[in-house]
């Protein structure tokens, strides 16, 4: 597996799995306005997935399509970070996960707009506009609920404590990231982390939430070494139709 292909899988699998997770709220959110907003976010992410996995399939050059990559791989072939697999939990947990991912995603996409690969830069330029809105909405909601009632504050602090150990993986550089940096395809994760910390720090301060004093980071998602038990459950639901009726289309 080439590093470039693997990097594209990471981008596409992050948006695919998170898009699916967020879509699970459709019809279940506390208010209809949030329901539509979350569904819009999920659709944006799935749209980005089509572009990333479409390019990944071309780069791989084995005749596979974006659909093949999304619907016919098993858990160990996925390269998404562990955070996006985490169950939705309550609404606060979903929005906290969304904000932490959005804040990473925004910096990553901004960096990718100047990628040495024109196709990557073009996809990033389209996606970054969507993600600018995602992070504004999720950030405002984190602030609203964090600096809200005693109960909403407590739920948001619990969500932050739960999600924080999954932040480190997004910025942990490995051989793939090193090659992407040296070839100018992707930005320096250490630089992204600085911008991420400033952004997230400011939002959490407004939200009156305390970032846990720990750098412990679960890992194994972006390398595919060890996903959480949740990924398999997502795939059984997401891939069911193509597995039961191979080649089905409309």
């Amino acid at each position: 597996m080439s590093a470039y292909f693997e990097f594209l899988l990471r981008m596409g699998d992050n948006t695919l799995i998170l898009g699916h997770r967020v879509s699970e709220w459709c019809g279940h959110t506390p208010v209809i306005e949030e329901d539509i907003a979350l569904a819009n976010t999920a659709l944006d992410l799935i749209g980005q997935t089509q572009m990333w996995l479409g390019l990944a399939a071309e780069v791989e050059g084995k005749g596979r399509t974006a659909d093949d990559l999304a619907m016919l791989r098993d858990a160990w072939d996925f390269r998404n970070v562990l955070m996006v697999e985490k169950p939705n939990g309550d609404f606060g947990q979903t929005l906290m996960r969304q904000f932490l991912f959005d804040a990473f995603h925004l910096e990553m996409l901004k960096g990718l707009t100047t990628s040495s690969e024109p196709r990557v830069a073009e996809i990033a330029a389209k996606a970054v506009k969507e993600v600018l809105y995602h992070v504004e909405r999720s950030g405002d909601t984190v602030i609203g609920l964090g600096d809200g009632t005693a109960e909403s504050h407590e739920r948001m602090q619990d969500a932050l404590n739960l999600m924080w150990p999954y932040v480190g993986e997004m910025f942990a550089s490995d051989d793939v990231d090193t090659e992407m940096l040296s070839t100018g395809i992707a930005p320096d994760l250490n630089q992204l982390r600085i911008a991420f910390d400033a952004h997230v720090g400011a939002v959490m301060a407004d939200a009156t939430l305390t970032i846990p004093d720990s750098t412990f980071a679960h890992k194994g998602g972006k390398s595919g070494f060890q996903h959480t038990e949740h990924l398999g459950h997502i795939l059984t639901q997401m891939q069911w139709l193509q597995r039961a009726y191979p080649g089905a289309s409309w």
Partner: protein
Amino acid sequence: MKNEWPLWEVFIRGQHGMSHRHVGSLHAADEESAIKNARDVYTRRNEGVSIWVVAARHIAASSPSEKGPLYEPSESKVYRHPTFFDIPDEVGAM
């Protein structure tokens, strides 16, 4: 209901229109989230280039039961329409 967010009226200016038109209403906690909700609920299909939201409680409305006194008197005053003037040819198309 006590826990319900306030109601907002939403006005959208379309690609080709000069004025904002009322498109519907929604609930939101404050004006910023009302604009975001309006973006998500009412501009999904590229409907607009500008959004106004107004808290519904700030809209003063005429009462339907006063329709008679409010509007009927103008029904019999056709002379208020500017259709009784001869327009000189030099004016051209109006």
